[in-house]
């Protein structure tokens, strides 16, 4: 049973990864990545990592992918502004050579990784893993992960939260309204009366920084 599930999920993982790399429209790449992530969560479940699988689906396939979809919709598909890989075949230099070189480099990397991973002297690599007994606090459950995170890995936990805070601040700074959108002369100083506006007049277009002329 677990073997069948492994092969189904493994096929989904690899097919999703191929789809991300091969598909031309970035929107379809994002969708392929969602399929990849959900199959990967099934693999995590097979490896008894329940909490990691749940976090994978909720955080990755949920939140992060929604962010991607929004940005793809904002920047536009491959037709407008955001050029796909070879919409003009032959015009851009080195397309086929680049692809061939990339495939060769990737194949070499794959062979090297397989040799490194499967050719190790680790005896346990051919086994099913450590013994496992189901229970409320065993390996991989939220209680187990939470216990580890708040005792042994507290420093890593806090560092990760600080990193998230810095990333949020950085994203606000990057996507903020300033940043060369308009010249210094055109930007008139904000009068105190501009602060007061009737309720409900702030539009979404202003929020994302679309200028009104």
């Amino acid at each position: 049973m677990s073997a069948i599930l492994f092969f189904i999920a493994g096929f989904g993982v690899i097919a999703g990864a191929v789809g991300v790399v091969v598909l031309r429209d970035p929107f379809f790449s994002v969708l392929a990545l969602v399929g990849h992530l959900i199959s990967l969560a099934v693999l995590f479940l097979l490896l008894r990592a329940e909490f990691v699988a749940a976090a994978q689906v909720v955080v990755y396939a949920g939140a992060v992918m929604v962010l991607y979809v929004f940005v793809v919709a904002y920047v536009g598909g491959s037709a407008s502004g955001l050029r796909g890989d070879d919409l003009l075949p032959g015009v851009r230099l080195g397309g086929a050579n680049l692809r061939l070189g990339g495939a060769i480099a990737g194949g070499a990397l794959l062979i090297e990784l397989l040799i490194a991973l499967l050719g190790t002297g680790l005896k346990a690599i051919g086994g099913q893993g450590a013994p496992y007994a189901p229970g409320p606090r065993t390996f991989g459950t939220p209680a187990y992960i939470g216990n580890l995170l708040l005792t042994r890995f507290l420093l890593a936990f806090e560092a990760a939260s600080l990193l998230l805070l810095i990333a949020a601040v950085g994203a606000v700074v990057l996507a903020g309204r300033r940043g060369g959108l308009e010249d210094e002369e055109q930007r008139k100083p904000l009068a105190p009366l501009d602060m007061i506006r009737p309720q409900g007049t702030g539009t979404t277009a202003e929020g994302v920084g679309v200028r009104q002329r």
Partner: protein
Amino acid sequence: MSIAWYLAVSAIVFSLGAVGVITRRNPLVVLLCLELMLNGANLSLVAFSRMWGNGDGQILALIVMTVAACEVCIGLGMIVAIYRRSLPVDVDELRELQG
């Protein structure tokens, strides 16, 4: 299934992501391929964690997911900033760095 199968899948996913990072020109897709590489690493971490019956690998996988979320946050912010300055959204043409 033995652990070696999971490791093989993780190696395949990692090298597919590397191929994507090398060949694709759209920065959005390059970010997606970086996610693929991180996921390949995550899968091998969880597999090794299962192999030893030790939770450290799973914690590391969670931290990697956090780092990936931060990277997506900053990367997408940069792409939006590039687009709003009406620069080409193409990693081959974005060669100059200017404050």
